[in-house]
């Protein structure tokens, strides 16, 4: 088997109204970023269930990104606040499971921030490269 360089696998839950649209704008603007992200569109970051984050991390994803509207901009008034609270609790609880909370990012990226989106993916990818593969990935490979 050919040895491969570590390329992080990221699952991204993006809210339909801001961050997903921002990701589209990155495309329309032809901004280039690493191909390590697989996007799952949700209606609101407030709909990101805890299990949405845990499942990929337990199944070998190296990072999970939650993208929502800036505070105050939520299409559903306060869904992003809910996401923020949930993410804070989650960060604490996954430590207990032996997972690194740096593998879960919550970012506010608006529909006009294509640049910010591209930069976020680039820096998240870079950070995950530093962290190395998610231990669960190794376990599953074994």
């Amino acid at each position, binding site marked *: 088997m050919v040895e491969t*360089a570590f390329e992080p696998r990221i699952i991204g839950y993006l809210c339909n109204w801001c961050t997903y649209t921002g990701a589209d704008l990155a495309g329309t603007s*032809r901004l280039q970023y690493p*191909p390590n992200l697989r996007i799952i569109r949700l209606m609101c970051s407030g709909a990101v269930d805890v299990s949405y984050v845990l499942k990929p991390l337990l*199944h070998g994803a190296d990072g999970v990104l939650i993208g929502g509207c800036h505070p105050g901009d939520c299409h559903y008034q306060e869904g992003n606040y809910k996401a923020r609270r949930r993410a804070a609790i989650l960060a604490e609880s996954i430590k207990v499971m032996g997972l690194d909370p740096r593998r879960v990012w919550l970012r506010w990226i608006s529909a006009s*921030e294509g640049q910010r989106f591209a930069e976020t993916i680039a820096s998240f990818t870079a950070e995950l490269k530093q962290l190395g593969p998610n231990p669960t990935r190794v376990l599953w490979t074994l």
Partner: protein
Amino acid sequence: MAKSEEGTPEKRPVGAVAVIGAGIGGMQAALDLADGGFKVYLADAGPAIGGTMAQLDKTFPTNDCAMCIMSPKLVETGRHLNIEILTMAEVVSLGGEPGDFTLRLRKKPRFVDTKTCTGCGDCAAACPIQRPDPFNANLSMRKAIYRRYPQAIPNAFAIEKRGEAPCRHACPIEQRAMGYVALVREGRFADAYRTIRQDNPFPSVCGRVCNHRCEDDCSRATAGDTAVSIMRLKRFVSDWARSHPDEIQPMALALAAQGPNAGRSPLEALQGARVAVVGSGPAGLTCAADLARLGCRVTVFEALPVPGGMMRVGIPAYRLPVVEVQSDVSDVLSLGIELVLNHRVEDASELLAQDFQAVFVAVGAPIGQKLRISGHELPGVLLATEFLRAVSLQSAGLADGASAGPGGQRTPTSEDGTGVMGKRVLVIGGGNVAIDAAMTALRLGALWVGMACLESREKMPAHDWEVRDAEAEGIQVYPARTFKEITGSDDAIGDPGTPAAGGTVSGDTNSANEEPDGRAPAPATGGTARGRCWSADAGNHVTGVRTARIIFRGFVGGRPDFDEVPGGEELIPCDVVIFAIGQRPDLALLPGEAQAGRRTIAVEGETLATQVPGIFAGGDAVTGTAFVVDAIASGHRAARSISAYLCQPGGPVAVWPPALDAGERPAQAVLDPQEARALLAAKPDRRAEPRKRPANERKRDFGEIEAALTEQEAVAEAQRCLECGICSECLQCEFACRAGAVRHDDREETVDLNVGAVILAPGLKTVAGNVRPEYGYAVFPNVITSLEFERMLSASGPYGGVVQRPSDGRHPRKIAFIQCVGSRDLTCGQDYCSSVCCMYTAKEAIMAREHDANVEPAIFYMDVRAFGKGFERYYKRAEHEQGVRYVRSMVSCVKEVPGSQDLRLLYATPDGKSTEETFDLVVLAMGLRPADGTLEMAERLGLRLNRFGFAESPPYGPAETNVPGVFVAGAFAAPKDIPETVIEASCAAAKAAALLAPARGTLARQPVYPEERNVSHEDARVGVFVCHCGINIGGVVRVPEVVDYVKSLPGVVYAEHNLYTCSQDTQERIKQHILEHGINRVVVASCTPRTHEPLFQDTIRQAGLNPHLFELANIREQDSWVHRADRDAATSKAKGLVAMAVAKAARLRPLYRRRVDMDHRALVVGGGPAGLTAALSLADQSFDVHLVEREEVLGGNLRHVRPGADASPQQVLADLIDRVGRNPRISVHLGARVSGVTGYVGQYRTTIRYGDGQAEELSHGAAIIATGGRASEPHEYLYGQHPCVITQRELESRLTDAGGTSPVASGSGDAESEDAAAGQGGAWVMIQCAGSREDAHPYCSRICCTQAIQNALAIKRRDRQAQVTILYRDIRTYGFRELLYQEARAAGVRFLQYNEDAKPAVAPAEHGLRVEVVAQPDGERFTLPADFVVLAPAIEPNDGAVELAQMFKVPLSEDGFFLEAHAKLRPLDFAADGVYLAGLAHSPRFVDETMAQAHGAAMRAAALLSRDQLQSAAIIASVNPRLCAACGICVDVCPYSARRINPDEGHAEVLEVLCQGCGACVAACPNGASYQRGFEFRQVFGMVDAALEEAWHDLPAGSS
């Protein structure tokens, strides 16, 4: 009010409305009306909807991203079934009457088909023309083909053209000269070659010998400079192409494949049709080439042994090397044209008799002519045509004595078959052919060469440079001569001067009586043209030409008109005479009736058809001798006619395709002189002059005289082009567009719309930046306008959201904002207030700090006008929390600091001294004006405008105009912000809807679908369609590989790839495959679902599938466009994304919308002006209304309003109450309070309770809250303690009820005492903000400044001696109310400003009162005696709001006003559908504003009530009751009150019509009992699994 209720119209009105202007106001009006059951035409002058709001970065006071909040509205407008968007449209006229108008619009050409354009942007990448981008306030560049902004709707490009560039306009073949010049500038020579070849099959020829009329008309030349050297650029490109055959190859193939009419489907009738072309000159070959590209089989017959006609045998090689002609000709022949050489066609009709379906005769005019003067038959008298032909054929080795050098060059030393070597040669004629003959003779070794002609030296037909070239080579010119005879002799040659005896023949020398010297240039096979034209051995020979000097006046009736100069006879000695005085065609091959006299062939002008059906003729044979380019033009024309003829033989010969011709050419681009000057100054000015070989050297051989431009010279020359046409028409966009959407021949259209009403919302523009020259805009680079700064702040703006100085890109630290530039300024005619600048500046200052915390913003202002809802808080936050420095001072001038380009501001400090301060950047807060074109539009509609150009509405008639049935919204009525615009748009929509109520629903369409297939029992059968999107996806992602991979995925039964999956034909394919393969889930892998999902959902619905059995994989915006450099990773990711979509699709379930019957009645709570107006508006729109008022009388606050003693509010109120009372649709419930609300949108049950305790239940579908507000009670300034301290309202009562000017007058109403009081000079001190903008009411009450000024003016009108002083903090007379402020100051009302921390003090005095105030800005103390002190108390919401809010489950703001769903875009709605708000319950406002709001709220309600059923959203939450523990968490988290615990069932449930589908409750549910339809756990997990199963793109170590 709308005219609708004045009598019932006899006929039903038209159920359609035209909305002009598609900014946020236009969109809102369109959506309201379309939702309310009307057909809407939404027209905009630009290429996309969105207006000014699309340009904004953030919006105040919430700092929302403007595009984020607007883009759902854009999409909704774009998708709405009953909104038809018309872009590039302007109003021409309005006919008919209210209810039945004909609105005529002019639709300017867009040049791109919006239906076909996929918005991919390939065209813009190919376009060579850069333009300043007005969307980015010209801070960045865009292409001539552009999209206004990335999210634009329609998501299609448009081309900016000023007209046809003059170079193209002047050219007979409409060569796109500007196009290839632009491409040369870009160094894109292969593309340039293709552009040239598109119109011109002979670029090498025309690059050398064209008379380039393009350059005569070049805008550079007309602007007083020298023309761009267009012809030489063409030669450069053709030379480059010749030396880069590999790069040209694909072009040639594309040209051959494409046909001359790219984008049009080939015509069946032309495929394989046989056409004969007689003559292989430029006309014949052009026609042959065009027809071959259209699919015809063409045979060209040529009498000579070589093809090319006069290009080949008429033009000497030193001007046009033979090899160049040959290569152009062979390029043409390579299109599959058969060439038959040495074949003289004797009779064109015979070709028709053979199997040719059409014949094109292009035999040229090869027959020379002589003057029939004495001696013209002598040997040694030659014809230029034959002479040049012989030389040319000899050089090619096709004639005797040939010794052609390489490239057709000859040396004069070689044996010469023409016999001019060593002779004296005189050429008769002054045109180009004469020059050619003379210079050729010189090169053949003639001893001496002269030229003689009728014309004067200046008027010679040859180009001046040609004559000069000839003279430089030593050719002697004899202008202004007539020719008497050619003298001859038997003597030895070399003895000129002795006329030969008997050699003279008298002739009619005064006429140009030419005589053809016989028939035809005999072909080589015939032998007569072979070898020498003339032999000196023939004995009798020429000795000279006897001429006479003349004064030539031109030709009259074909004859020369001149006077001989007495004594001007001169014998010019020579041995050889060459006539170059004209040529004519050989007509023998056509029947006599097809000939025009003896000179040319007669054709029908436009079509070139001869009298013989099927035979066409063109080129020199028809026109007489002309330039190559004319012949090419003729060939193109013939090809069009012949193709039309072939499509319909025997029918009338029409020009085809019509768009290319028929006199409909676009107008020529004309540069504005000022712009031309600026462009000339900005571009290189030196024209590349040709480098010619020295005369002495070049005259020895046939080598080319002129050298080609070097690459560097060519690019520099191309940079000189002024690009006056804007679009260069280079066609690169058309070549790049794989969807075939580009339409360069698009023409202006007129559209007539039959509509019942018109709403005008054309929007605004900012005042020109240099309106105040002393601020240095456009002079100093770091002085910018607010709009420029707005774009700078925008993340998608020119600098990507980085705040930087235009001059050096440095981050500015100190930024000065100067307010009121072009506002409140009499000096520039802009004396009104623009209403929004104070707030947008506060926002810009805050955002600048947010971008860079080091920024120190300073705002220079006169008054801060933070009068709207939430504005005062925003302003205070800017000042106290965000570090924004507010300086109350007007800046007198801005100067640049030499060297640093910093800016020095001169302004006055509070102590009155002037000071200077240096800033890095200055932002001018530009005032607002109506948009461009509104003046003209108003004129066409007969609309009354105020003196500033804004539309005038009658008092208390918001949105109305002087033209019945025409309404106005937004900034065209007055400068205003977004929420006010949105409110007014809904108001205008309400008025239109009232006018057209009987026609509601008559023109609105409903979609029709087949019955839905039940797939619940089937296994998932997924069909996948992967899109190439031209090259947008396919150029990066290996699409076929993705398709192969997809086929292996579980559940996939079919997969294919498409060039454009969104194209109409692919929709049909998808439907077909669904039926054929039993597909029950569809996945499309293409672009973003945000724009394209509805299209595909509609398609599968048409095929009988539930639209939610669809999933889109975004492999363009989120894959191919962002991983362009890595095809492997992009392909791998595409596979993953499609697999994820397939995984989700396989788990999708059909979704259905819950329907609820609509109760069409409305409830209006509150009987003040807002409630009354809303009730009437709804009733006018034919809805029944319950109007509930808690008091026993209607009228609310308005009962007390008499601004400046003006009685009109009371008249308005009386009118409203009267109309409500008479309206049978309105049930008024007086003395009743709402005591309970149950139900939900569409089905409310509200209980009201009367004063006597009686209750009544009202059923309704929607509610409008209009509970109003009241003036607060002042607690300071001795109010309530001293009788002469009163409120403004109390003052109004006094002013109205009595004379009121005297402090003692208290309502006697006695006219005499009023008169006595007049002139007494009472003293009035008004104190503003007596309650507002303080802790108790930390907001601005909006109306008090205007109210005080109106009352002050009323006092002044009654008593000019009265002393009125207004103590204020900021005067907030926004909009045109500013004019009242100016009037008051002019009238002598005194204004003193005080600060919040040094409030005035009121004390009783001996007579009346005494007011002490510290006046700002200089802190001077005043003690003012006052007969009356008048206070402006705050406006606060009425009590009861809290209870009502709880009952309707709607929120209140921290100030107790009702809180709308969204401050900007939903100012009249609550978050939950079905409840709306208006009036003081919303925020303090004027009566007319309240009425606008009430109409708007009524419209919002009406749009809902007009539906028969309400549909829930499809994506909503659901509950699995088995898992639900009824814990109630979901009820708490739902922001829409869409959750409740069903008491009967004991579990949570979803009120489906209320649920907005955010999914918050699902994530919150601790039991997993809740799920979100369309985003179920198993669907999301399926995607996660698919993503993690994918191989991804792990690369071998070290390779990445």
